[in-house]
């Protein structure tokens, strides 16, 4: 049977809209055949039930070594994200404790003070200013640096290199250079922790796990440290402007949060559901055996791409999915993924987003855009969506 193979990604994202092709395939082709610029063709899965099934089913593998569908010529080494249990579990278990709900709660007070300080500095600078530069980037970066034990003062240096995680435009040479520089930088920090062992920060704890307990190899230690640094803030620093953009362009939503502060955690979940932070589906899974998904069969060896942003708008699960309802309950969104690769930083991201919103709403009640909506520049050709800059005033 002839199947149309769709070119994927469907197109350049526009602000926070989900490409209409997703709604189309979700309705008419729940298992759609797609071809990315590089790599083999794959199934694109967009219905909630199928996405959740793929992510949660141990018969789907993330292990490296295939010609993965992708947008860049070089192979993506996802580190932890390209591993399967039990190897994956071994490494994940080492860091999981640092990111649990309970552990993250212990960081909340300090994080609130950091948010307050950043806002104080914004106020001292005076409006207008770029919220991305003055808050959205330094806030999660500082939290992650303190968690890891990386000097915050270095953030402009490693920030440039860390962009390799989310850029689709860096040449293979440049990407390799940035990775190498990031690796060298982390190498210095790891060596320092070897000379002066500590378990006061996560990096120190990981070095000890390596040296004292042989729980991970040296390459695994280096890769994990580098990944934690980069991915730890690239996503949250994009989501913050997405959330603020929603608040500043949806007055009814903002007013509800002002009137009902207890709604804030639920509003964060709803904005996580609504904001399509991933520009397109990536990191395919491979069926290790024939699998019957709710919408149809996948044969052993076939690649499957899932788009959680599309699943988060599935009307089969979310009534009026394109409406932001801050009180939506239940809200089983897949913004943090699902299954063994469920975002490690989920609890931390939640805490940061709640803190950010509460602080901005409380301290800058007059916050508004300093430009028109049309003038906001959005990230282009990156794996992560969001405003490149968000000029605000108050």
């Amino acid at each position, binding site marked *: 049977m002839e199947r149309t193979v769709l070119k994927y990604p469907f197109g350049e994202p526009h602000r926070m809209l989900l490409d209409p092709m997703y709604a189309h395939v979700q309705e008419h082709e729940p298992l759609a055949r797609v071809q990315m610029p590089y790599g083999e063709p794959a199934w694109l899965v967009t219905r909630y039930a199928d996405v959740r099934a793929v992510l*949660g089913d*141990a018969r789907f593998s993330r292990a490296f070594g295939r010609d993965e569908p992708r947008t860049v010529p070089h192979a993506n080494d996802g580190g932890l994200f390209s591993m399967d249990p039990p190897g994956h579990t071994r490494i994940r*278990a080492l860091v*999981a404790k640092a990111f*649990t709900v309970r552990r993250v709660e212990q960081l909340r007070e300090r994080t609130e003070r950091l948010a307050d300080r950043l806002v104080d500095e914004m106020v001292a600078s005076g409006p207008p200013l770029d919220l991305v530069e003055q808050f959205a980037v330094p806030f999660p970066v500082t939290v992650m640096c303190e968690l890891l034990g990386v000097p915050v003062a270095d953030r402009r240096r490693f920030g440039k290199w860390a962009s390799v995680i989310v850029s689709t435009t860096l040449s293979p040479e440049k990407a390799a250079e940035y990775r190498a520089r990031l690796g060298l930088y982390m190498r210095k920090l790891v060596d320092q922790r070897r000379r002066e062992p500590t378990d006061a920060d996560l990096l120190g704890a990981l070095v000890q796990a390596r040296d004292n307990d042989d729980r991970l190899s040296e390459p695994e230690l280096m890769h994990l440290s580098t990944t934690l640094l980069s991915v730890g803030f690239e996503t949250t620093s994009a989501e913050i402007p997405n959330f603020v953009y929603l608040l500043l362009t949806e007055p009814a939503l903002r007013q509800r949060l002002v009137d009902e502060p207890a709604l804030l955690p639920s509003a964060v979940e709803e904005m996580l559901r609504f904001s399509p932070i991933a520009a397109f589906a990536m990191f395919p899974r491979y069926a290790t055996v024939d699998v019957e998904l709710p919408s149809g069969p996948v044969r052993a060896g076939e690649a499957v791409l899932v788009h959680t942003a599309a699943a988060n708008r599935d009307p089969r699960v979310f009534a009026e999915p394109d409406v932001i309802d801050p009180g939506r309950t239940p809200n089983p969104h897949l913004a*943090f993924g699902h299954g*063994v690769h469920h975002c490690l930083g989920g609890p931390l991201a939640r805490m940061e987003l709640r803190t950010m919103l509460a602080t901005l709403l409380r301290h800058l009640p007059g916050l508004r855009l300093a430009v028109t909506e049309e003038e906001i520049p959005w990230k282009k050709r990156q794996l992560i969506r969001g405003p490149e800059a968000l000029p605000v005033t108050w």
Partner: protein
Amino acid sequence: MEEAATDPRTGGSTGDVVIPRWRLSVDAAACEGSGCCAGIAPSHFRLEEWISTPINEIVSPDDAVLAAAETCPAEAIRVVDASTGAPVNQ
């Protein structure tokens, strides 16, 4: 399935069966439905609607169960000795 075991203290056979068993539970209120457990230990955990639940409450010792408890972002999984109730440590 119970069978007669060797007493680990004396090496002799014993009528008393000494097979370690663990009791699993998931705190449904804490569970966030991440699916980490069902991915790591699919024979032990299943998500019903959005909440994880043990497939069997009493199980033989299994590293995968401990791994699931260790990686749960909500720390919602409890593993205890089925006869004494003492927590099983990783």
